[in-house]
């Protein structure tokens, strides 16, 4: 007897044994579980806020901040400016530290990393000792040492250490000559921007040159062109007057003063991150096989040429990803400014939520700001990385 005919050829799987259904069901259970936990937690928060009489809104940001800040790169008046302005000032202060810190830490790390590979035993050992000491002690302790023992023990303003170029070092900070802008300053700034575009065009044009002197150094030539144009514009327009710091009374007038908190934070971050970067640079240079250097020398390149054209690009390929990590760490470690009283983003936000009690909103703002900073740094470094990384066909 022939087997009974089926109505359709595919086997019918009951839905409770169908893998596709089960997967969706499992994810549904997981999502429900997570949502339940969050609902419970935030329900508690809502009830707590209700009991305290506050609500979840960002309207408090428009109120006047009534606390003074020690560092104000833009003009700030506690009586009239809002909490939002104070928050922006904190953000600006953080960016000041991060940008200067990244630049200086990279420089220091590069130097120490190369020193670790020096043929001079003493220099190599000193570099290694520096790296070991600064990597194995906490950043907070290093900041305290820089601040209390380094910066605050500098002499008073009256007896400040004078360096050539009218730079003064005292326990009120580092006083540097600065400039005050005249009316033509904005005009000069726009001209400088236009000159940057001109220099970039020159860079492209010089790329078609045939002589190596022009072609290989076209970056330098373009920069020199911009410099010449900007200087010519500055001489004709006279956009700013220099102001030199002078001691009047108990403090410096004119010029610009970098506060001791800023100096201590910057030094602490630079020396701490520099030690990690030194190790990364050393590992990157050591990752380039020796045979490549030997082959380059065999082909007739000088040591410097081999370094510049072959070793460093190959080493950079290995260096850049962990370097990105260190830059992100520096950006996040700048929040330790609260320990020495530098008015950075975290310090200002702390003051804001201590004053207003709106902890949840302020914490969301802090997290958002740091996430954006981290995102910007990693995106920029990804662009750099794409230039250097190993491209497969």
């Amino acid at each position: 007897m022939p087997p009974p005919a089926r109505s359709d050829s595919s086997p019918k799987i009951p839905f409770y044994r169908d893998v596709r259904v089960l997967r969706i069901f499992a994810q549904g259970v997981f999502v429900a579980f997570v949502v339940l936990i969050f609902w419970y937690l935030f329900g508690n928060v809502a009830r707590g806020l209700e009991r305290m009489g506050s609500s979840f809104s960002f309207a408090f940001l428009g109120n006047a901040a009534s606390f003074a800040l020690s560092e104000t790169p833009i003009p700030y008046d506690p009586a009239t400016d809002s909490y939002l302005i104070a928050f922006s000032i904190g953000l600006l202060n953080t960016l000041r530290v991060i940008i200067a810190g990244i630049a200086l830490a990279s420089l220091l790390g590069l130097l120490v990393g190369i020193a670790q590979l020096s043929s001079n035993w003493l220099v190599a050992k000193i570099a290694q000792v520096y790296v070991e000491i600064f990597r194995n002690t906490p950043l907070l302790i290093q900041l305290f040492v820089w601040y209390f023992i380094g910066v605050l023990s500098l002499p008073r303003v009256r007896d400040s250490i004078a360096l050539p170029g009218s730079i003064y070092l005292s326990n009120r900070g580092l006083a540097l000559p600065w400039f005050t802008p005249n009316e033509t300053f904005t005009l000069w700034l726009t001209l400088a921007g236009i000159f940057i575009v001109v220099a970039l065009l020159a860079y492209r044009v010089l790329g078609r040159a045939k002589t190596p002197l022009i072609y290989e150094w076209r970056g330098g030539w373009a920069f020199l062109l911009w410099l010449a144009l900007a200087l010519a514009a500055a001489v004709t327009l006279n956009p700013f007057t220099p102001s030199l710091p002078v001691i009047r009374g108990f403090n410096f007038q004119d010029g610009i003063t970098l506060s001791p908190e800023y100096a201590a934070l910057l030094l602490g971050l630079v020396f701490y991150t520099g030690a990690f970067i030194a190790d990364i640079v050393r590992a990157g240079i050591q990752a380039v096989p020796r045979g490549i250097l030997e082959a380059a020398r065999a082909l007739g390149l000088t040591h410097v040429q081999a370094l510049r054209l072959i070793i460093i690009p190959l080493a950079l390929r290995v260096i850049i990803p962990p370097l990105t990590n260190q830059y992100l760490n520096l950006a996040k470690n700048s929040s330790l400014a609260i320990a020495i009283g530098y008015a950075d983003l975290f310090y200002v936000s702390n003051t804001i939520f201590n004053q207003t009690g709106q902890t949840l909103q302020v914490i969301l703002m802090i997290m958002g700001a740091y996430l954006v900073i981290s995102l910007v740094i990693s995106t920029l470094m990804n662009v750099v990385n794409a230039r250097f990384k190993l491209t497969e066909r």
Partner: protein
Amino acid sequence: MTTQTQPTPDTLKPPATSVGVIGWLRKNLFSTWYNALLTFIALYGIYLVVGSLWNFISTTDWSVITANLRLFMVGRYPAEETWRVLASLALFALLVGASWAVWGGVARAAAILLASVFFTAMVLPFGANERLWMAGNLACIGIGFGIGYITRARRVLVWAWLASLPLIALLLYGVGGLPRVATDLWGGLLLTLALSIVGIVASFPLGVLLAVGRQSSYPAIRWFCVAYIELIRGVPLITLLFMMQIMLPLFLPEGLTVERVMRAMVAFILFTAAYIAEVVRGGLQAIPRGQAEAARALGLNGILTLLLIILPQALRLTIPAMMGQFISLFKDTSLVAIVGLLDLAGIANAAANQPDFLGRQAEVYLFIALIYFVFSAAMAYGSRRLEKTLGVGER
């Protein structure tokens, strides 16, 4: 007849200026003119730095340390109950001694380091009672070594290590007949070690779970893990510490209070878990796909494949990075000083602010920097030895 001078052993030796101390100096320090210049500059720099440091160490008054030694070590732990801390140390010494006998290698280095720490503690100006305990701890290492040598019980030792952690926690906290010592009273090195060890032990399984979930084939789980990891990695640790200190009471139902040290522990666990997840993800990505496919072909389901095949290999690859993360955690515990907990860094600040010892920051910071350095360097050394023992990067 001409006589030829046979080459004698004397004339076959290398020239005196290229061997021995002089040869080493020429090659390493004075090979070129700028190397020689660098050497002189470096020597002068070393003289300045080390000279002033030595001057400071030998002439300054260290009474701020010696007067507050108890604070630095255990914080405000009640004096009558400090025997519990010392008993925990003795238990730890016993286990380290047994591990030395059973496993050797890294355990031996750890035992030697522990013995030298106890010996140094015997020399420092602790009370006579504590010094006796330190001598007892040294004996415990020896006893543990003896027990391990005689019995060679590996599995029992592993279980003993696992059980020792909750046992020590309960002993320090107080359970049953022992009076309770709230964690708010813990301080100094005790609190630092407690935060680090709890952070390490609890964040490891959470991190592995997150890493496995991050590469899950269920989109909901994967997005949740990715969101968690990226969010936590993008914010500074101090933000999480403040958030937990201030908002954890808000998140919990009314009436349920959590001690401040517990809140800090939660923050550390959540923070470290995200970083461990990234480290483990790197290890998981390094395992060839063929391993999972072969396991499937042999009939292992997903979970068993993970547990028996993938994770053991992946975790071994990630040991250096994970040890680095744990060393970072140990150093980052100093941040709780900012939220007001009295760990080693917090006690240092408090000690320098005492009316008797105002302005003695240099001494205290040097002291605790030394303690942190010793622990971190020891852990880094242990990590390198562990790598060598397990053959990471070789097979």
